[in-house]
């Protein structure tokens, strides 16, 4: 399925874009994470959480949303 993926913080620097359209074959969030790691090897060892339709979701959640956000922690102040 085609989804819109938004990247935040240092992850957007790795992807070199804030938003992109991806075609994903996996059914759940962990599959999506694997697809992102394949596409962006620098995501390896990075912490991030996935939000689906503006809600944080667990890795086990099914991919139902059209809009995905990939959120890394950051600590600057």
């Amino acid at each position, binding site marked *: 399925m085609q989804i819109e993926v*938004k990247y*935040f*913080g*240092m992850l957007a*620097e*790795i992807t070199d874009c*804030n938003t992109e359209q991806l075609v994903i074959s996996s059914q759940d969030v962990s599959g999506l994470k694997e697809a992102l790691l394949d596409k962006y*090897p*620098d995501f*390896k*060892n*990075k*912490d991030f*959480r996935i*939000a689906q339709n*503006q*809600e*944080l979701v667990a890795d086990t959640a099914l991919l139902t949303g059209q809009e995905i*956000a990939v*959120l890394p*922690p*950051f*600590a*600057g*102040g």
Partner: protein
Amino acid sequence: MSRYSRHISLKEIGIAGQDKINTSKVLVIGAGGLGCPTLQYLVAAGVGTIGIVDFDVVDVSNLQRQILFGTSSIGKNKAEVAKEVLRHLNPTIQINAYSEKLTPKTVVAIIEPYDIVVDATDNFASRYLINDATVLLEKPLVYGAIYKFEGQVTVFNYKNGPSYRCVFPNPPQKGTMPNCSEVGVLGVLPGIIGTMQANEVLKIILNIGKTLSGKLYCFNALTNQSNTIGVSRNEDQITKVKNRGPHFEVLDDSFFCASNASEITIENTINQDIQNIDVRELNEQPRMTFNDLLEIPLGELPNKIEAISKVKKIVVFCQSGIRSHQAVTLLNEHNISNCYSLKHGVSAFEELGNTEVYAERSQSNKTVSKRT
């Protein structure tokens, strides 16, 4: 009360609301980019007791965004200078300065007397410590964090809402964050995010409007886009913190940052006898074509240690400078100590492009004997 007349004339606040503000106690941890604007508005609003925690001293590079300080503040403790400046803004309130580092041993005693805590710190160690202490003491925590042009704001531990660990259960893994102290930041960004934190504090004190509890507000100053992400309470995370009690995790912040000791800028690699190692996967672009270049993806590095020069200076690079840092750690473990991670990764070469410097570098590499 004429000082607060423009608050009192709002029907949502009134005299009763202003009284609540004047009797509230707020602790702001960190008097830096986020803390300065937060403090300024909370003090102006008349928060009865304000605590300021910061062990650090003012540096000239702080002045671009830490708006409570001036040139004459350089070298002085931030909490003390902030207290002095804010006393002039509003002498009717109590301001307590804590010019010390927040530690697992001191955190409970410092936080306990206050109603609301503001996390305006700049590192993960403090953020997890403050989260765990406020979960334990059941104090609302107004959280703000920034990175370059992006900011996040939310409210934790409020009206049965989530905590920081419900968003990010554990601190980042070692060496996975870019170098903390050198990351740039748009000066006005902490002004926006810190001011939003002050706004959340006032809504909590007044019990009006809707707070960001359960919602992570993300703002991008470059695009003006904002995203509000729903966050649910994770009982397991809260219970874990409560069960551990005041025996807080001891985290050293240097743990999270790629250390600069092993980092090298491209300018410092010119005209030297260097062996370069590209630890990216072989399909990652752009490829570099120096004479003395090894291409060993990070995963294969442990099996190819013998290919690496024991005499030359080693400069490792990847796409952004994170994997190369891991590679340097790995090489150090194999007793190869004269090795450095190239700052900004392959983009450092790209920035130079086909300039003289790049040519000189290639030239210098040509003069050394080829690796066998």
